[in-house]
């Protein structure tokens, strides 16, 4: 060290302020959002998925049309049937969405962070006057906006086809219910989007991140049901066959299955799109006292019913994003 010329008495810069960063963490946020959205909307992988979801929508609506034309005059919620009715060989449109939306979300986000590293653009972008916060949130928002754009377009398409096919406009309540359904769908996508970002931060290889995201999706889609009943049987065993025991086991099973975003989403859509649904899971005869079977609930009541599921979806999205945020802030950016 003795050879260093600079060791001569330089005063230490001492007027550094107390901890805390200067400048807004959101500087440059909208530049990132704009660039990322342009990338998503022009990327081939998005276009493929859009075509897929479009075909699904058209197929589902067409199948439903065949089914409900005769009953148009009797059904007050005919437009909601467009989303929920399944007709062999087509499953209901909500069913399609519950596994297509995660796929789109993962496809958007699996290379969000590690892609910047592998293209060696990360250090160059972060050397611009922006914080990391803006980059991560910008990428997440761009994904969410892209998803919203696609889903809203499809929602409009279905409504439009419904008006043409059925020959009558939707009433206010139908529009309100299907809009809430749209919001639930977007946040259901948000969960998978945030999960994809977590994996894209953790894994340096985009392929690994994509596989990890898809495995989680597969796990919840296929295996979670089995895991749920297995866990429920272990945690609340039915030893004597008492009704209380059976009830407790069913409740445990339902609680565990709600850890899956798929369950939350299916329950939320069921609650809001089917006004006749008044509870998820088991209904005891005591709860049905005085109820008129099949009578629709008012919108506010349906919304109340699916409110926990909807907030659950939003909360999970925020939590996963927060996890990605913490991981990304701690990451060394040298590549």
């Amino acid at each position: 060290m003795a050879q260093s010329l600079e060791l001569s008495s330089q005063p230490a810069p001492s007027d550094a302020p107390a901890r805390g960063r200067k400048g807004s963490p959101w500087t440059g946020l909208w530049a990132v959002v704009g660039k990322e959205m342009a990338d998503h909307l022009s990327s081939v992988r998005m276009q493929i998925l859009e075509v897929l979801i479009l075909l699904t929508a058209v197929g589902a609506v067409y199948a439903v049309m065949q089914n409900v034309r005769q009953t148009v005059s009797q059904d007050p919620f005919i437009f909601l049937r467009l989303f929920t009715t399944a007709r062999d060989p087509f499953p209901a449109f909500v069913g399609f969405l519950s596994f297509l939306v995660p796929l789109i979300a993962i496809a958007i986000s699996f290379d969000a962070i590690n892609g910047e590293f592998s293209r060696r653009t990360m250090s160059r972008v972060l050397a611009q006057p922006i914080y990391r916060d803006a980059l991560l949130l910008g990428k997440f928002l761009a994904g969410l906006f892209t998803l919203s754009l696609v889903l809203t377009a499809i929602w409009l398409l279905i409504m439009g086809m419904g008006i043409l096919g059925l020959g009558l406009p939707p009433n206010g309540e139908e529009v309100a219910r299907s809009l809430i359904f749209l919001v639930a769908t977007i946040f259901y996508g948000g969960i998978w989007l945030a999960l994809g970002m977590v994996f894209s931060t953790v894994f340096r290889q985009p392929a690994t991140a994509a596989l990890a995201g898809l495995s989680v999706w597969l796990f919840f889609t296929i295996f979670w049901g089995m895991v749920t009943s297995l866990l429920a049987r272990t945690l609340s065993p039915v030893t004597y066959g008492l009704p209380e025991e059976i009830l407790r086991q069913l409740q445990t099973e339902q609680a565990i299955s709600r850890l899956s975003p798929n369950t939350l989403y299916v329950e939320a859509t069921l609650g809001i799109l089917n006004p006749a649904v008044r509870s998820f899971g088991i209904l005891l005869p005591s709860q049905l006292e005085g109820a008129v079977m099949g009578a629709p609930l008012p919108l506010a009541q349906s919304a109340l019913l699916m409110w926990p599921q909807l907030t659950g979806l939003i909360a999970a999205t925020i939590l996963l994003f927060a996890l990605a945020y913490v991981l990304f802030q701690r990451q060394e950016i040298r590549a």
Partner: protein
Amino acid sequence: MVDKSTKPASAPPQAATETVLQAVNLTKRYGAAVAVDNLNLTLTRGEVFGMLGPNGAGKTTTILMLLGLTEPTAGAVRVLGFDPARDPLAVKARVGYLPDSVGFYDELSARENLSYIARLNGLAYATAQQRIRTAIDRMGLSEVIDRPVGTFSRGMRQRLGVAELLLKEPEIIIMDEPTLGLDPEAAQGFLKLIRELKHEGITILLSSHLLHQVQAVCDRVGLFSHGRMVISGAVAELAQRILGGGYRIVIEASGDHRAIQTALLALPGVKKIEAAERDHFVIVADRDLRADAAAAVVGAGGSLIGLDVEAPSLDEIYATYFKEATNGAIA
């Protein structure tokens, strides 16, 4: 913050002494490993400083700390009066950084890539478009401005990287291994560009392990080893200190061998005579003594056949320093 304490020998030729970048006892540890160890560094406006050292010596980590991209474990940094750890946006708005192996979005065109960077810098659209045009023209990429960067060669990417730096009209430019992987012609062009930027008053900090290139453009250099800057100063000055005199003068002369040798040794500034074979003398001097040596040979009754000088080379300084350091000669 005006720096008056630097020795005159290390001042840049322009004699501008405004300090633009200062690091004091800068330290970065990753667990038990020390990446940068008590680094002290001062740059004055308009100088070109070269950070030299093998890979893993802490050069890139130092650069990241100067930019506020990594938090220092200890020590303080001041860049243009700002603290990069607390006010990174102000620093990054004024400092251009060209990472090693610079990457771009391959599917976007050169113009789109630069537009994105301009927007991140908060430039207005009209200003941005005009600056992009100017920067691209200057870097000789106007032919390919709307072509996807995926089709660019390594040299073109490097030039696009510099075009990007010019966008924000920086006061300081930091380049990490800028000539690595360039063909000799492109590397020469790049060094020329560095000199031009210096003449525009931009302070340049570059890291490299290609010593002869650094020597050609740098006012001062610092040798890095295991996280420490072990020695720094102008190349000639280092030669003086490490090699004990930098200039090796090779003389071919015929005549009275002994008389010529005595005459050469008597010259002021000559440190020693390294080799004195029949007609061949190598003297080591602290400056370019060719004229004096010629006169001395003639004065001693010899006839001069050939005269050549080897300026001190950074390679030699580097090699000698690390050899002596390992032998314990310089601790």
